[in-house]
């Protein structure tokens, strides 16, 4: 299931609901991404972040997340996949993204969860703007994300 929402995301509650919905999946892997209260800078220093804003492309975001989730279910044996992603303005400590994968085998659950995160970071149309004081900057894409996503490329 895919949810894209501006409302706060309660990771623990969503995970408990996911567990209850999948009683016959022995293993559940999850990833939670949360807003940190600082921002890394080129020099290795960091500045505090008051808020973060995620712009997204309504319609395409849902399509991309569905596509990534379907691809994971094709590659691994999964009982269920849940992806919840927030957009809009968020504060430090807020959960931005939650991915849950349920499987009989923990290897499948782990690989699928990591794959979804790697694809999501390079394919899902989100753009991050950080607000700190009066300053607001669009964050650049990271090369390491491209490298991580490439690991999953398949030669069919």
């Amino acid at each position, binding site marked *: 299931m895919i949810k894209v929402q501006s409302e706060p995301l309660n990771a623990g509650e969503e995970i408990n609901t996911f567990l209850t919905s999948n009683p016959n999946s022995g293993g559940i892997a999850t990833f939670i991404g949360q807003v940190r209260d600082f921002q890394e800078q080129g020099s290795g220093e960091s500045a505090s972040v008051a808020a973060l804003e995620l*712009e997204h*492309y309504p319609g*395409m975001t849902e399509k991309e997340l569905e596509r990534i989730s379907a691809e994971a279910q094709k590659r691994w044996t999964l009982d269920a996949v849940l992806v919840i992603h927030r957009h809009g303005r968020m504060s430090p400590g807020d959960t*931005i993204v939650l991915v849950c994968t349920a499987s009989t085998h923990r290897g499948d659950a782990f690989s699928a969860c990591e794959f979804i995160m790697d694809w999501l970071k390079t394919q899902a149309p989100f*753009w991050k703007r950080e607000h700190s004081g009066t300053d607001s900057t669009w964050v*650049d894409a990271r090369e390491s994300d491209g490298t991580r996503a490439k690991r999953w490329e398949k030669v069919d």
Partner: protein
Amino acid sequence: MSLTVLYFAWVKEKVGTGEEQLSPPDNAKTVSDFIDWLETQSPAHASAFSDRNQIRVALDQLHVPFETDIGDAKEIAFFPPVTGGAW
């Protein structure tokens, strides 16, 4: 042929709008051709597309490379490489 053109993040800020309806000329076959034409529409458009390495494209909400034919697409979107959380 009318096309919905969408801009996101700093591309939107540079162009000055998030959405416009445009009718590109018939010789704007590919995404690249279309951008060439867009750049002639205003200095703001020209500025937004000055570094094409920083631009990504979706046709009808699917990522595509610049050499793709626009064909019957109804929606084209331009945006920076996607970014998310810092993890």
